[in-house]
């Protein structure tokens, strides 16, 4: 016999419970909801008990372990960088990066580099604004997979700030500008793939 299926209201109950437990990301929460719901359904069937009793029993023993994954910001950041590095180190990206650095080394005089640095600053700012509008005004929900891409952009911003300087006082060189451009192009490719995957999965 098939285990009972939880109703939409019961699923919402689990969702609200996890929201109250500070599970802020929708994608993390939806995986937890499925885990809890499946366990509760099995418990209801095997122990012949009602939803609330099964839910309470499960949570008493598993809540701590279940929430271990939640709000581990440094871990999330590490995963974001690891996932980005998979795009970054693809052979065609590396070839493009080397070509970019060589091109700037031979043709990029100080004026050109300063202009690119200016452009980089505003490109990063523009992408960040688009991300904020998309997350906060269009989706109005927080998804870890999207916020992870924002973390990567923040890392690139700090990289350029450190090695090229602020947009008005450039102190970088063709290599630092080349690497930043390479990182930004790789980021855009990574962001497009991530958003496409996100839309297919959650919208």
């Amino acid at each position, binding site marked *: 016999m098939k285990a009972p299926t939880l109703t939409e209201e019961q699923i919402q109950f689990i969702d609200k419970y996890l929201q109250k437990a500070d599970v802020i990301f929708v994608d993390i929460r939806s995986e937890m909801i499925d885990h809890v*719901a499946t366990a509760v359904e099995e418990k209801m069937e095997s122990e012949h008990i009602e939803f609330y009793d099964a839910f309470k029993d499960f949570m008493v023993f598993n809540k701590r*372990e279940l929430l271990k994954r939640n709000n581990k910001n440094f871990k999330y950041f590490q995963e974001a960088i690891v996932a980005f590095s998979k795009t970054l180190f693809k052979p065609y990206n590396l070839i493009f990066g080397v070509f970019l650095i060589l091109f700037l080394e031979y043709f990029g005089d100080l004026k050109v580099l300063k202009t690119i640095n200016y452009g980089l600053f505003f490109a990063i700012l523009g992408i960040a604004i688009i991300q904020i509008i998309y997350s906060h005004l269009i989706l109005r929900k927080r998804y870890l997979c999207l916020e992870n891409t924002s973390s990567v952009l923040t890392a690139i911003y700090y990289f350029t700030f450190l090695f090229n300087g602020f947009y008005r006082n450039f102190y970088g060189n063709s290599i630092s500008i080349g690497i930043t451009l390479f990182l930004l192009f790789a980021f855009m490719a990574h962001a497009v793939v991530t958003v496409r995957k996100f839309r297919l999965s959650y919208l």
Partner: protein
Amino acid sequence: MTKKMKNSQLYKGSLNTIIMKLLEENGKMYGYEITQKVKLITQGELNITEGALYPALHKLEAEGLLDVEIEKVDNRLRKYYKLTETGTKETVNRLSELEDFIRNMQSLVNPKLEF
């Protein structure tokens, strides 16, 4: 006696390989299904906790070894994990490493069994 994965460093080191092996055998699986499968195979001896399983799955996903598929099942979303092409190749390597490890441990712990 149930061994909780969180309490055992020995099992912890093999968790990723266990997950990859299960996915190699079963195609695609979701989190809860993995915990139950491990419990079933080990006859309840080994219990993978949620706190160990999900970080491992998400790390393998970030490393490009697992791919995910999300489906609506029974009023909720279910995230299925499956091996990528790189993941399939890596599973072979990791299993071979684990087998070597088990063999070496066997020789060290119980040398009499060696012929």
